[in-house]
């Protein structure tokens, strides 16, 4: 392990690597202020992961918010122009209420957004950048992908009521076939349609395997159209050499209001929750009265704290004790010498709350003797 590895934390390393990756593909940095007008978030409350926002009134009387999200600000600052695409990346702190608590948390988030007249290339590029982002962080990672258009078309065709569809989608999100069957039974849905929905839950794995088992079940043009779009994307992922790391899983994505096309979530072994989340959210823009399409993702870098790191056994390598009247020049020279071999803390007292490897004493004549050595 080099000294750099010891000093740089997982999240800091990730930020540098991700920034370099996104710049390679022509993304430029989006830097935003900590505050945004509260109005922006109220109008699109459901898009936020949590609807609680820290607000305050600024000196002009405007209600402001500490940003809980970056995507909405990026969208707000983009323009609709035919044939034009805006590509930005960011790493920003956002403020949200942590689940199950009543307190706000500062979360370091990185990500990118691609907004404008989207071509299928742009969609593939963003999905591949998501995979590459995970690969930069760990060797053991998985990107689960799904297609909201396909899931929505199959739910549409099922004949379920409006509430039934929402419940069925929640079951799909939880991989819960037992309750999905109950919902279909209660609404008198044909066996064939029930099995089709259950197949969406049960199918999980390589794109080739999943898509070939789903394909024969599709009947409508809408389903086929979404399927073809998804299949083409999966082929590109495969040809880019990421077939093993990307798995099709229709449980990804639980918000049909905003997401319309591909949706994905990234996982890293050892981190209990998904670290990356994203998708194509044309519907959000439509709701905001915009013509553009958009796709992007966010990485929750605070979760990297959970990733295994080699824990240092000591806080300080050497603690050098000296008397109050020790010669400053000699002490400076001793500190320089010792610091070449590791960290050194110069102190008159044995520090409490610090775990040291070696405890040494600096005598008045400039000699250094070891008092304790923990190896």
């Amino acid at each position: 392990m080099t000294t750099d590895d010891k000093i740089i934390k997982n999240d800091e390393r990730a930020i540098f690597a991700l920034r370099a990756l996104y710049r390679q593909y022509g993304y430029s940095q989006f830097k935003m202020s900590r505050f945004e007008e509260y109005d922006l978030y109220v109008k699109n409350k459901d898009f936020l992961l949590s609807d609680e926002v820290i607000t305050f009134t600024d000196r002009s009387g405007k209600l402001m918010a500490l940003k809980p999200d970056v995507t909405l600000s990026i969208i707000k600052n983009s323009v609709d122009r035919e044939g034009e695409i805006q590509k930005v990346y960011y790493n920003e702190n956002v403020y949200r209420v942590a689940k199950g608590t009543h307190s706000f948390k500062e979360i370091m988030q990185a990500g990118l957004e691609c907004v404008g007249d989207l071509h299928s290339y742009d969609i593939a590029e963003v999905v591949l950048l998501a995979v590459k982002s995970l690969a930069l962080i760990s060797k053991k990672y998985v990107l689960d992908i799904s297609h909201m258009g396909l899931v929505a078309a199959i739910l549409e065709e099922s004949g379920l009521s409006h509430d039934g569809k929402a419940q069925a989608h929640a079951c799909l999100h939880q991989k819960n076939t037992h309750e999905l069957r109950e919902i279909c039974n209660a609404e008198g849905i044909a066996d064939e349609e029930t099995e089709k929905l259950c197949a969406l839950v049960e199918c999980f794995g390589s794109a080739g395997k999943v898509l070939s088992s789903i394909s024969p079940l599709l009947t409508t043009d809408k389903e086929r159209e979404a399927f073809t779009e998804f299949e083409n994307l999966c082929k590109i992922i495969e040809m880019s050499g990421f077939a093993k790391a990307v798995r099709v899983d229709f449980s990804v994505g639980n918000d049909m209001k905003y997401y319309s096309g591909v949706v994905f979530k990234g996982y890293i072994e050892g981190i209990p929750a998904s670290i990356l989340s994203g998708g194509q959210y044309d519907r959000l823009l439509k709701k905001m009265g915009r013509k553009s399409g958009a796709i992007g993702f966010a990485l929750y870098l605070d979760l990297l704290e959970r990733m295994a790191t080699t824990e240092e056994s000591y806080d300080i390598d050497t603690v050098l004790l000296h008397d109050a009247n020790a010669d400053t020049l000699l002490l400076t020279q001793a500190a320089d010498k010792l610091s070449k071999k590791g960290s050194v803390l110069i102190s008159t007292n044995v520090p409490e709350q610090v775990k040291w490897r070696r405890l040494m004493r600096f005598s008045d004549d400039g000699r250094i003797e070891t008092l304790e050595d923990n190896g």
Partner: protein
Amino acid sequence: MKTMVNVALPKGRLGEKVYDYFKKAGFECPSIEETNRKLIFENPEKGVRYFWVKPSDVAIYVERGAADIGVAGKDILLEYEPDVYELLDLNIGKCRMAVAAKKDFRDPKGTTLRVATKFANIAGNFYAEKCRDIDIIKLNGSIEIAPILGLSDVIVDIVETGTTLKENDLEVVETIVPISARLIANKSGYKFKNEEILAIRKGLEEQVRIRG
């Protein structure tokens, strides 16, 4: 070395029944049956590590990845809404979440309904769907006493046989949802220990089928 799957089991009678399902499904762990004060039991050959936790905490252990899978009551899943996969209904520990009140109870429609419960989220969602204005009184136990002492109009609680209700002159007014034990999985663990978790699910599914 075999990949170890961490399993959180709910302490108590239900947990013992659940372990029996795991055992019959081929994931036994002899040390768990010995009487001792150990907290964690493992069988490396079968790739399982069990631990007992408070039933209402199982979902937390699983959601936060300390356990890859676990067994929790549907009541806990509805109340805390953990971000986990719900893989199987084990069909045991069956009961229902219900609204109960004193025998002569008539809903005071013109006023706010006072609801005593341990399950504030479930009760809140249930009445929100009915657009009924309620006042939730969060209690941690002995819920049945609330309507008797006039603390609340109704209670929302788990009803198994209904004996406690009957003995206190209470009765079920409405069933909210049937409850049973569910196999849940951590989302990340499900990706990286997929084969192992699916093998356990398959074994348990077979047990559910056999025992009808």
